[in-house]
C-alpha cells in the first residue's frame, strides 16, 4: 500500500510536466500540419455518384457536412486573398448531389462561383449548372430563378436570357411582384445601371446570409458611386468648357458654383479629381480597393 501511495504522489507531480510536454509537442504538430494543409485543401472522394451510394440514408447528413466545410473553407480563406477556389465547386457539387434540397448551397454557390477572380471563382458556367440543378430539384422555389437570372445579367451580360429566367420565376407560386417587373426591364432595356441597382437591392433585402448581404451592399454602393462619378465627370467637362482648364479639385467646382457642397461617396469619403481631369473615388475610401475586387453592375 505504501508503495502505491508514493507512486500516486509521484504521478501527481509528474502530471503537469507530462502535459507540458504534450503541449509543446502539440504546437510542433500544429506547425507541421499547417504546412501540410497549405499545399492544397482536400476534397476526398470527388465522385458525387459514389458518395450518394456510399452514404445511403445518411446522404442528407453528409450533404450538411460538405456544406459546412464549404462555408468554413470559404470563410477561412479570408476573401480575396486566395485565388484558388477549385475545391469550392466539388464541395458544392457534392452537397447538392447528396441533398438537392439544400437551398442555401445554391444561393451561396451561385454568387461565389460566378463572381470573377479574385473574389470568386470566375466560373459562371458552374454557377449556372448548379442553379439549374437546383431549379430542377426545387421547381417551386422562385428565388433560384432570381439567382440564375442575376448570373446571366451580371456575368454573361445575356439580357434576353436573364429576362426569360426572371419571367419563368415570376410565374411560380409566391414569387415577388418585382420579378415580373425586372423581367420586363431586362427584356426591354437590357443593360442599365438602374436595373442593376434594383437587382442588387432585391438581393440585399432577401439575403439572410451576412456574406451575401455585404456583397450586395457593396455592389450597390459601387453602383451609386458610378452614377456620382458620371455626373461629376459631366460637371468637370462643363467646367473645362467654361473656363478652358481642367479643375484641380472639387473646391474649384464649388467655388464656381457648379455644385452645392462637397459630394461624398456612399462610404462617406469625398471624391477626388485626378490629373486626367476625370472624377474618381478617393484612395482613402474603402470603395477604392473594392471597385477593383468587386463585381460591378455594369
Amino acid at each position, binding site marked *: 500500500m505504501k508503495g502505491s501511495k508514493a507512486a500516486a504522489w509521484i504521478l501527481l507531480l509528474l*502530471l503537469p510536466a507530462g502535459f507540458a510536454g504534450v503541449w509543446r509537442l502539440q504546437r510542433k504538430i500544429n506547425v507541421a500540419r499547417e504546412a501540410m494543409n497549405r499545399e492544397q485543401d482536400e476534397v476526398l472522394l470527388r465522385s458525387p455518384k459514389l458518395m450518394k451510394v456510399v452514404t445511403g440514408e445518411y446522404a442528407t447528413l453528409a450533404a450538411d457536412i460538405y456544406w459546412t466545410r464549404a462555408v468554413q473553407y470559404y470563410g477561412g480563406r479570408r476573401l480575396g486573398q486566395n485565388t484558388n477556389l477549385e475545391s469550392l465547386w466539388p464541395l458544392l457539387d457534392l452537397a447538392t448531389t447528396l441533398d438537392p434540397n439544400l437551398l442555401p448551397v445554391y444561393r451561396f454557390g451561385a454568387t461565389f462561383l460566378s463572381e470573377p477572380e479574385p473574389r470568386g471563382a470566375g466560373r459562371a458556367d458552374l454557377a449556372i449548372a448548379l442553379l439549374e440543378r437546383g431549379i430542377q430539384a426545387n421547381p417551386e422555389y422562385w428565388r433560384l430563378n432570381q439567382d440564375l437570372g442575376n448570373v446571366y445579367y451580371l456575368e454573361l451580360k445575356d439580357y434576353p436570357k436573364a429576362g426569360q429566367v426572371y419571367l419563368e420565376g415570376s410565374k411560380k407560386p409566391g414569387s415577388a411582384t418585382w420579378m415580373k417587373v425586372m423581367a420586363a426591364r431586362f427584356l426591354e432595356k437590357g443593360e442599365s445601371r438602374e436595373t442593376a441597382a434594383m437587382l442588387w437591392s432585391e438581393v440585399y433585402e432577401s439575403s439572410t446570409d451576412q456574406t451575401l448581404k455585404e456583397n450586395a451592399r457593396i455592389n450597390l454602393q459601387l453602383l451609386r458611386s458610378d452614377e456620382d462619378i458620371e455626373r461629376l465627370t459631366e460637371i468637370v467637362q462643363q467646367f473645362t468648357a467654361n473656363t478652358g482648364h481642367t479643375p484641380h479639385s472639387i473646391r474649384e467646382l464649388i467655388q464656381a458654383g457648379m455644385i452645392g457642397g462637397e459630394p461624398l461617396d456612399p462610404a462617406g469619403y469625398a471624391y477626388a479629381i485626378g490629373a486626367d481631369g476625370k472624377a474618381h473615388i478617393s484612395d482613402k475610401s474603402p470603395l477604392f480597393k473594392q471597385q477593383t475586387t468587386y463585381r460591378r453592375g455594369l
Partner: protein
Amino acid sequence: MSRLLIVARNTFREAVRDRVLYNLVFFAFLMIASAVIVGQISMDIETVVMVSLGLSAISLIGLLIAVFMGVGLVSKEIDKRTLHAVLAKPLRRWEFLLGKFAGLVVTLAVNTVAMAAGLFAALWLVKHSIARGDAVVLVAVYFILLKLMLVVALAMLFSCFTSPLLAILFTGGLYLAGMFVSELRSLQLTNLTPQMQKFFAVISYVLPNFGNYDVMGAAAHGRSIAAMLIVHNTLYTILYCAIVLGAAAVIFSRKDLK
C-alpha cells in the same frame, strides 16, 4: 519486465482465440467490393477512393477493437475473477496492466498490418502498379496504429474505475471530442467571454488531439508527409500514453477487487 511479457503474450493469445482476427475476412470482402465499385466509376480517382475507403475501414475496425477489447482487458478479468490467481504470483499490479496493454497493442498491430497488406494487394490489382507516392499510405497506417494505442490506453484507464458500459461510452466520447479539438482551437466564437475562450484554448491542448493522426488526404493523393510530423506524433503518443497508463496503474494498484 519479463513478467509483463508473459501477460502480454497471454493477452495476445486470448485475442486470437477470441476470433477477433476474423474481422480481417470482412475487410477482405470490403476491399474486393471497393475494387469492383471503383472500376465502374472513373479513371483517375481509383487510388483516392480505394485508399480513402481502405484507411477508413482500417481506422474504424481498429477503433472498434481498441475500444471494446480495451475496456474488456481489465473489466473482464475483474468480473470473471480470473485476476485473483494471477495476483497471487510475484507480479505487481502495474506489470499486469501494462502487460495487457502490450498484448492488445500487438494484436492491433498484427491486425492493422494485415489489413494494410490487403489494401496494397487491392491497389495493385486495380492499378497494376505501385507508385512511390503510395508509400505515404504506410505512414497513414502507422499513424492509425499510434491513434489506436492511445485509445486503448484511455479505454483501460476508464475501465479501472467505471463500469464497462460507461468506460466504452467515455472512451468513444473522448475520441470524438479529440477529433474536433483542432476545430475548438480555431473557434472564433466572438460571443464568448475572453475567459471562456481561454478555457477552450486550454482544454484543446489538454484533450488528446486525435486530429493529429489524420493524414488521409495526403495518403489518398500521394503527397509526402514531413518526417518531423512522424517524429512528433510518435513522441506525442508515447508521452500521452505514459500519462494515461500511469494514472491507470495508480488507480488499479489501489482498487479493491471483488
